[in-house]
């Protein structure tokens, strides 16, 4: 999406155009959903978080000044909303792990369940064992492939901090998944 077009749409939203807002949502909704899912690991929660994030976008678009690019801003809002959701959930259950959505269950019991589905499941589970910031960095930098700089803008920290958390996160993932690998094979 050309930056000029995006700027124009945002300008129209600031002027109150619901049509333009709808267009913006449609351009970014899958991206927002995927990111939210990476954090919350549950389709219903991902939907709720992504929608909530767009509602927030609508209400605070006036404060968006465009230094960082809309995607970065949106990512930040989705990340915050996701972390918030995890926190609420943790307070409720006092546990991070919750792989109980129908698709995962199906994957688990299906005879066609392959190693790769298995590994995906374990990976999602292991991700949720990481401390919040490590998880955020692993998702944004490694899984979503954003640059160190963009991640540092989204999380509002230094690039050095991103790198440190990435190393720690990947190392921890390795030790968590190594165990799984040895256990299943």
């Amino acid at each position, binding site marked *: 999406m050309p930056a000029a077009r995006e700027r124009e749409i945002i300008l129209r939203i600031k002027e109150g155009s*619901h049509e333009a*807002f*709808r267009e913006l*949502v*449609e351009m970014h*909704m*899958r991206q927002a*959903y995927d990111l939210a*899912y*990476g954090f919350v690991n549950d*389709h219903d929660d*991902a939907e709720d978080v992504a*929608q*909530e994030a*767009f*509602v*927030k976008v*609508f*209400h*605070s678009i*006036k*404060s968006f*000044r465009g230094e960082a690019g809309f995607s970065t801003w949106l990512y930040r809002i989705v990340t*915050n909303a996701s972390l*918030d959701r995890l*926190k609420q959930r*943790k307070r409720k259950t006092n546990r991070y792990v919750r792989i109980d959505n129908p*698709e995962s269950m199906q994957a688990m019991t299906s005879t066609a369940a392959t190693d*790769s589905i298995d*590994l*995906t499941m374990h*990976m999602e589970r292991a*991700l949720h064992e990481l*401390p*919040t*910031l490590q998880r955020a960095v*692993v998702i944004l*930098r*490694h*899984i*979503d*492939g954003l640059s*160190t700089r963009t991640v540092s803008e989204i*999380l*509002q*920290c*230094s690039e*050095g*901090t991103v*790198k440190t958390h990435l*190393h720690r*996160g*990947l*190392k*921890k*993932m*390795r030790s968590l*998944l*190594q165990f799984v*690998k040895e256990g299943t094979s």
Partner: protein
Amino acid sequence: MKHVQDLMYEYLQGELDPVRAKQVQEHIASCNACFAELQVLKEGALLVRPLSRKPSEHRSEAYWHNFAVHVQQRVQQGPKKTVSTDPVRNKIESFLTYQPQRVLALVGGLAVLVALITIAPFRTVQEEQSLMLTEGSPAGGVMPVNAELSNYFRKSKILLIGLTNMTPPEGQTVDFRAESQTARKLIQQARVLEDQDIDNRSQQLIWALEKILIELANMEDRANLPDVELIRTGIRQENMLFKIRMAEAQQSHAMFSTADHKEIKQQ
């Protein structure tokens, strides 16, 4: 050449330019520590793969067709129930919007109040902390944004100072319930603030603070020294206390200058 941890991930992903990549390669060939580190990182990176099918692809076309409509419905329901349906807050908002003269007077009064609070001498951190912990809902919503921001920054500062000054006995766990609880309240307060029209710098500081607060809120009830140390390092690295003090100064300056402005106008 110094160690190359900083470039390792980029090296693994093939993101470095050829010159840099060659430097890293040469260093790794001659440094056991970096070689070992690289192997671990590489294994981790290989195990954590992007999902083969994106989560959004689990949803149907019809679902995506209606997504924006659902968002718009939520927009029309109002931003957040706690904000929009609160009659007291709505009154305050319309008051703020339509009666600038009285707002200036109010802000002036508050500036004096804040000055009194700020210069109230010799109150120890511990006293302030216990005061903070017994205070009611942080999201009361009866203060104008500047005052609410100052209040939020002040509470955060006290929490962080308490944390930096904490000296837990070696090898023992620390009771963290009070800190976690305060952090949670502050996060809620930040959410309310973020829904309002606040300046960019405050917004950024809120985000930076939020990361620390979230870590704190997620702490186990009894934390180990290394966990505490990790958060402290975060506070130091991001120079948080300095940033908060600057922001506080900025907020009170904003209030005072509004008040001054008003006095000049009246003369």
